[in-house]
């Protein structure tokens, strides 16, 4: 039966810059080592852009998702890119992707930091509910290598670049979704452009990631557990009925601590932080694409996704896989 109330995922895709930097590579110019980075974060290597633009990796992920969904770009009704910043302040990244893949639909970006992909799913839900769309492309993508200070070992080692995409069509896969925000500047921020207005009396700020790691850590564990429990209950499921958890890949220790506080069997968490680091809004759609491509997803499985990030924002969603 055709249901226009929600959506299902028709296809997935992902792409990363070609260059991979290991912890050892970073220790050639930073006072750090593999032991510190691996044991504190779980990351061993990350992809970093050398020549690729965000538009290129986002478009590659999008094309893969369209191909997997067997949908022509011209049939898309909407493109949403979740990113803290595209290649340009304007045009939006979504407009650049639209041009690159040859789509003709409306396109815009949203910024909800790392949970941006989940926020975008929630927006898409509204379009489906209003019968405004029948095919939506969402790309979660980030080039964190532009935003970190490569002289600050406490932040630059954590992140990586990448893109993950999904194509949504009408269906009833979405069982529950939740987004939250709690305005808070000091714990995690990146200052915007300073500009060169001759009238400005604003103090010039650097444009790098600033973070109170331990406060983020605490917020992450608490919100991850709370949001997962909330969406599982809202979906009418129990923790044992979740087949896969795709947690935002910020730090493996955050995930392990949350795991110990929840009853979902540990082997159901799927992680790839070891190879990607934290790719912000791209982390969850990349995980999903890896699972889909390796044919590990079966119809009827319940997939939980959960994320947290600058804002502070959080998001969680339960999808019943029906591809």
């Amino acid at each position: 039966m055709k249901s226009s109330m929600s959506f299902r995922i028709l296809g997935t895709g992902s792409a990363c810059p070609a260059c991979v930097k290991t912890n050892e590579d970073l220790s050639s110019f930073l006072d750090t080592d593999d032991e510190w980075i691996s044991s504190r974060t779980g990351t061993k290597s990350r992809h970093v852009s050398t020549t690729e633009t965000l538009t290129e990796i986002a478009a590659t992920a999008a094309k893969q998702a369209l191909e997997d969904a067997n949908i022509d770009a011209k049939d898309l009704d909407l493109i949403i890119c979740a990113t803290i910043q595209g290649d340009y302040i304007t045009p939006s990244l979504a407009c650049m992707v639209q041009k690159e893949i040859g789509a003709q639909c409306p396109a815009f970006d949203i910024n909800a930091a790392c949970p941006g992909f989940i926020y975008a799913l929630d927006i898409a839900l509204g379009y489906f509910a209003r019968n405004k769309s029948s095919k939506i492309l969402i790309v979660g993508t980030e080039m964190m290598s532009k935003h970190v200070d490569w002289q600050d070992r406490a932040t630059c080692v954590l992140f990586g670049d990448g893109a993950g995409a999904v194509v949504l069509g009408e269906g009833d896969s979405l069982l529950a979704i939740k987004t939250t925000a709690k305005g808070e500047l000091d714990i995690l921020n990146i200052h915007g452009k300073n500009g060169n207005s001759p009238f400005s009396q604003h103090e010039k700020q650097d444009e790098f990631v600033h973070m109170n790691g331990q406060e983020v850590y605490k917020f992450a564990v608490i919100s991850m557990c709370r949001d997962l429990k909330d969406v599982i209950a809202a979906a009418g499921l129990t923790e044992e009925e979740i087949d896969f958890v795709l947690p935002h890949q910020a730090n493996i220790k955050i995930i392990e601590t949350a795991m110990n506080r929840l009853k979902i069997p540990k082997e159901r968490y799927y992680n790839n932080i070891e190879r990607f680091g934290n790719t912000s809004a791209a982390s969850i759609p990349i995980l999903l694409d890896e699972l889909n491509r390796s044919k590990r997803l079966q119809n009827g499985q319940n997939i939980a996704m959960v994320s947290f990030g600058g804002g502070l924002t959080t998001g969680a969603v339960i999808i019943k896989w029906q591809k």
Partner: protein
Amino acid sequence: MNVFEKVAEIIANHTDTPVADITMEASFEEIGLDSLDIVDLVMAMEDTFSVKIELSQSIKKVGDLVTVIESLKQ
């Protein structure tokens, strides 16, 4: 059970350290906890004692944590 005994029990559960080795003077470094393990521990204490503990660099040994919890519980 007083605050110290409860704290010692939680630390012993979180680590491989026998309860007997956990004294007020024992530093987290000696017990083998890194800065993120301390954050985990602080969160476990918040749940157990129903308090909100500010993370700070001054929490270095078991006694520091016990003192903070005792002052918050008053």
